[in-house]
């Protein structure tokens, strides 16, 4: 119960985001209209995805430093859960794009960054499945994980500065601008982001524990 406090917090924040995100008033803007509520969900997927992949890289680093097989297991699980959040972020984003920009897929630096990072983790899974020896698999995939993660972070932080983007706060600055967000929306947005991240880590925790039990169970 005591250790599960963050899980309760995460669940409550996600429920708060679902209810308040649908019911609380939002600014009425042309084109965006009510789709602006997608901000609480679409952006939350990315926050969760990036923090999970950050965790995956962290466990990969631990694996290389200590050679501990549990870190490898957690690193892999975090990459998988992050990948699922990435797909969800892509789907929510595509729906949003269809209703605001008129197309499901546009050529935008953020979308390129997403496509690249999803491909990267697919390559990571391919790499894992093609090495049989568990120790070598752990080490090789940890190296690829760190290599790819650092390149991805640089790519999604640096490249949008070169080109214009349809996303808000872009064309010079890939981050949020402080004037973009209405103050009423902030009261939902920030708790929602924390909620999604905690939910992501909860799923990671469960997945890593299942994997660990599978590893310990013979046959």
């Amino acid at each position, binding site marked *: 119960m005591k250790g599960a406090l963050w899980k309760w917090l995460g669940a409550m924040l996600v429920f708060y985001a679902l209810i308040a995100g649908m019911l609380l008033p939002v600014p009425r803007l042309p084109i965006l209209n009510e789709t602006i509520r997608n901000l609480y969900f679409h952006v939350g997927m990315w926050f969760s995805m990036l923090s999970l992949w950050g965790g995956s890289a962290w466990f990969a680093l631990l694996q*290389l430093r200590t050679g501990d097989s549990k870190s490898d297991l957690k690193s892999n699980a975090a990459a998988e859960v992050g990948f699922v959040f990435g797909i969800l972020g892509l789907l929510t984003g595509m729906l949003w794009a269809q209703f605001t920009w008129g197309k499901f897929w546009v050529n935008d630096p953020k979308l*390129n960054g997403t496509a*690249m*990072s999803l*491909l*990267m983790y*697919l*390559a990571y899974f*391919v*790499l894992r499945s*093609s*090495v049989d020896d568990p120790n*070598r698999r752990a*080490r*090789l995939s*940890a*190296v*690829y994980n*760190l*290599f*790819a993660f*650092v*390149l991805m972070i*640089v*790519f999604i932080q*640096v*490249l949008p500065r*070169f*080109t214009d983007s349809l996303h808000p706060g872009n064309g010079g600055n890939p981050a949020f601008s402080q004037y973009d967000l209405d103050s009423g929306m902030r009261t939902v947005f920030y708790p929602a982001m924390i909620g999604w991240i905690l939910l992501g880590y909860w799923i990671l925790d469960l997945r890593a524990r299942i994997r660990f039990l599978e590893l310990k169970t013979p046959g």
Partner: protein
Amino acid sequence: MTKSSRVAPIHLFRFLIKLEGRQRSFVFQSLVYALSTAYIASLVFPNGANAQTWNGLLWMTLAFNAITASTHSFDREAGPRYFYLLGLVKPETLFLSKWAVAVLASVSLALLNLFLFSVFLGWPAQNALGYTLHSLCGAMGFGALLTTTSALASRTGRNLGLMAVLSLPLLVPSLIVGVRGGERFALGLSAVEYSLGSLGLGLLATALGYLLFPYLWRD
């Protein structure tokens, strides 16, 4: 330790270059690959291509040629020579000399590609010197990045398919910066910041590879 530190990267580099000279099949393979891709490109566009298409085609060719050329760069180290080198040189030394060979190969392949493209498809780039130097910066970045992925792929023991799968997602940033900069140079504009971006990505990949390579190399 005393034995390992006696071999400097430059000696190993000379040794590796000498090996390439003795056993020419990989060099020959890269030459034929470059020649056939340039010729196929000229068949695809019989009436010549406009600057943008030409530039895009050239960068695709550069990327795939670099992948093909570096696919086998760690093949010779897979057999008995692996143990020989493991005892003789530090992993960092091996990485630096392999890196130098890969960058040299990638840059000379890029020069060859530029020449072949100008023969078969014409030369629409206006700022010729800028364009050439920019391509060489991009090729350097490719070579630097592919050293690590090639080492990874060879350590899995299932090299052929895995090399492209692991490399392509990671090449995306360098490729995008390279193509966008190339477009500007081709139109006669200056785009030194793109060339610097390519170099920066190459340096980052080098630094990461240098730090991670020892974990790859030792079993």
